């Protein structure tokens, strides 16, 4: 009930949306019998901030991974500025799509500056021989990389900590550093996976400004987030993913007003919603077994983190399920009121 509906869809001075930067068509991702993402279309235009929301396990991160080449979509294709993205994550980055991670993945034992320099990798060419022989071009390229990296650190406000180890940074600054590192590859599209997770309201506000500043640099942004206030303040357009399918897409007012979204978040099956029955079924099954179905494949690819991820997920999932249950009781009342009030906003308001 804290989410105010006053937030308008666009912010003043948003650049006119132009050409299509990202164009995902019919993206479907199946893991064996499980369909994590089903036939999702999404476009992001230049100068636009697009939000992607949905309950836990809706397939947002899986969809992200399809965009960045960590997964190869079972069906459908993803185009970046008209060309189909290659199925390798390093090639995707080279093409101009940069990303951050939901659970921060910095190079912990490297300095802040080195982290950003690693981000410059695709935009520099010096190979092994150049490094060993120290040809004239080497020093020039290295100096240019450092200058650019320092510029980015200045931009996110970490310039004075350039020589610190990344692991020694406080949480909020690690998030900033991840963004700086992603920006170092000069992307045309930046994918942010829950950039404000675990932040207090002040830090969230700062992140918001940072994202606007990045947009003003001419970089399109696609952001996953649970913090509804953050997302409706920020985004020009919001797409809602539920049970792997895109439920609705539109500006904040449309999405906030859509009853199916409310229903999806509150866990109440809504007649006429696509796949609502299956959704309810799966949700029930999930609540029972506590197994994060959609996350399983992720655990497969990053073996190193299996236990960690699994642990995180079960932790995250458990209170979520409880919260859902608790709120189901309120649901009829909320529906009866037919307000545009989105309860999930409160749930994620940290």
């Amino acid at each position, binding site marked *: 009930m804290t989410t105010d509906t006053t937030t308008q869809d666009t912010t003043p001075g948003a650049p006119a949306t132009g050409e299509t930067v990202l164009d995902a068509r019919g993206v479907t991702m199946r893991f064996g019998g499980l369909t994590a993402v089903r036939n999702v279309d999404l476009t992001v235009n230049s100068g636009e901030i697009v939000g992607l929301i949905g309950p836990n396990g809706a397939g947002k991160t899986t969809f992200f991974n399809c965009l960045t080449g960590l997964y190869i979509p079972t069906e459908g294709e993803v185009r970046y500025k008209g060309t189909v993205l290659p199925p390798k*994550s390093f090639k995707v*980055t080279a093409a101009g799509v940069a990303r951050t991670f939901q659970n921060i*993945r910095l*190079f912990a034992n490297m300095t802040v500056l080195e982290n950003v320099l690693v981000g410059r990798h695709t935009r520099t060419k010096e*190979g092994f021989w150049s490094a060993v022989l120290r040809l004239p071009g080497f020093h020039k390229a290295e100096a240019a990389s450092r200058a650019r990296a320092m510029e980015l650190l200045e931009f996110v406000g970490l310039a004075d900590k350039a*020589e610190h*180890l990344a692991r020694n940074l406080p949480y909020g600054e690690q998030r900033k550093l991840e963004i700086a590192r992603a920006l170092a590859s000069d992307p045309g599209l930046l994918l942010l996976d829950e950039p404000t997770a675990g932040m207090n309201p002040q830090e969230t506000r700062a992140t918001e400004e940072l994202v606007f500043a990045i947009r003003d640099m001419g970089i399109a942004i696609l952001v996953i987030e649970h913090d509804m206030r953050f997302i409706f303040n920020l985004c020009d357009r919001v797409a809602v993913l539920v049970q792997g399918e895109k439920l609705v897409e539109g500006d904040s007012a449309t999405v906030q007003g859509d009853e199916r979204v409310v229903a999806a978040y509150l866990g109440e099956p809504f007649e006429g919603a696509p796949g609502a029955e299956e959704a309810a079924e799966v949700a029930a099954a999930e609540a029972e077994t506590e197994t994060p179905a959609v996350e399983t494949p992720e655990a497969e690819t990053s073996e190193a983190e299996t236990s960690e991820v699994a642990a995180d997920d079960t932790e995250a999932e458990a209170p979520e399920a409880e919260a859902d249950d608790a709120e189901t009781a309120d649901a009829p009342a909320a529906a009866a009121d037919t307000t545009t009030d989105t309860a999930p906003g409160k749930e994620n308001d940290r």
Partner: protein
Amino acid sequence: MTTQTTAPDAASTPATAPSGLIGIPPQIGRALATGGGILTVISTFLAWTWTSAFPGDLTVYGYPGGLQVLVLIGGALTTLFALASYGVKGLGWLVPAGADGAIKFAALATFATAWYTVIAISTNLGGVVNLEPGGYLVAIGSLAALLGALALPFEHPEADPIDPDDTSWEHFKHRAAHRWTTVKAAFASGTARPVGKLPSYVEILIIVAVLALGLFVFTYGIGTEYDELFIGFLLTAGFGFAALNKSGLIAQASQITARHQNITVCGAFVAAAAFPFTQTDDQYATLGVYILVFATVALGLNIVVGLAGLLDLGYVAFLGVGAYAAAMVSGSPSSPFHVHFPFWAAALVGAAASLVFGVLIGAPTLRLRGDYLAIVTLGFGEIFRITANNLDGTSGPDITNGSNGISSIPNLDILGFDFGAIHNILGFEIGRFANYFFLMLVITAVVVLVFRRSGDSRIGRAWVAIREDETAALAMGINGFRVKLIAFAVGASLAGLAGTVQAHVTYTVTPEQYLFAGPIPPNSAFLLAAVVLGGMGTIGGPLIGASLLFLIPNKLQFLGDYQLFAFGIALILLMRFRPEGLIPNRRRQLEFHEDAEAPTVLTKAGA
């Protein structure tokens, strides 16, 4: 419920004034440490035993010999640190991080060496009756110094409160843990104050002095003639190094060397090149060149393991490929190819052969991660050895001459300089192995250059990024497979390069030189141990680790069949107490120092 009485006991300890480990008043303890140190120094000028049957001739008055010299050094260190702790003018520079920790370790070094000597004399010659008064005096003096040092006050750590519901076994564990932290605290010392800006010639002079000291210690260690002296050397050097470390001198020296990196690296090579000139015959130059081969290969492995984080358990195969390739084109009569290449061509052939072999192995295996890669490389290492064994003309085509290997490899001849002959340089006789020592030093320099330069570049950062988090590195646009393959290939060709020299040094190349594990280094297990023990990702680490791993089994022949056992125990202990290696990477050091102490210049080279 009887145990409850211990809880207030443990809690009340920190409340009292800081005291030492043993109950001697601190003032008396300090005096005892100083007096004991002086007494020890004096006693080293006396005779310790009546007969020269004990090696080193400890019977002479007024002239310390053998183990006495080591005890003298330890005693002098103890005395100096103790005097510095009294605030004697002109000695303050010795203890920039506080004297007490340093005194304790120096006294420990003296005590260990002195008592080891006394016990060794008694057991070797049959009874304490063989000790002269000097022997008793040194035993008493060093014991007094140690007791005095242990009585010096220190900050007692606070004991965790005891849970009265615990079982007595848990109480026991709890108390043991507390006792252990107390002992650790007793030997702790503060952080060194930073060195002020000195004139650069002074700093360079300090670097020269440090390098000269390093050369002296290394030469002394390599030249120890009997087991007792080598053990005494290890005791003195080990505890003495710890004492210098606690005094803060090591930290200050590394600050200075960090300011003049290039000078330090060049100086280190000059110091290493001076080693053959300190030797009168070729006996220890032989050890020197073997150590250098081993250390160079370990440094090459450090690129693969330390920087890129690829655990390679078959690395010695690349050394073998290089050695075999060089041996085949060396004009050896048992080589199937009757060609004789000049050295530069042979070195290229060796490096190229290893490179090809490295890419052939790397291309299919580098798609694996972690443990799987280790197992597969282990397999390939063995495949190389078995293949070389079988290509003998009966089980396969005659290429490597089977288990007999390629023998009678002729000596090198570069620009008319015959490596087999004895040369006279500056009045010093430089023998065959010393010649090869110089050549190997050049190869080492190449490897160090490659390591330093590639480590501090785009490709080096990519290696470290892959090691830290492969998924994130890929998402940053790093072609993981390609970058890993480069690391693998570079490591392989550097090992091949070292192999070309090794083939000539050893005259013969046989498959049995390139085992996975064996008593004689270099083999894959020892190479990896040298890297881990010395410190991953540093230059100095593998060099020191390799020297120790080569010298210790070589000098302690009496261990015989127990060598590998002792080696295993030593490795376990080291990994328990100093997991970051003898020379930790500066990254790792940074982890423990917050904001203020982070140096402005961070290099991957720990040296």
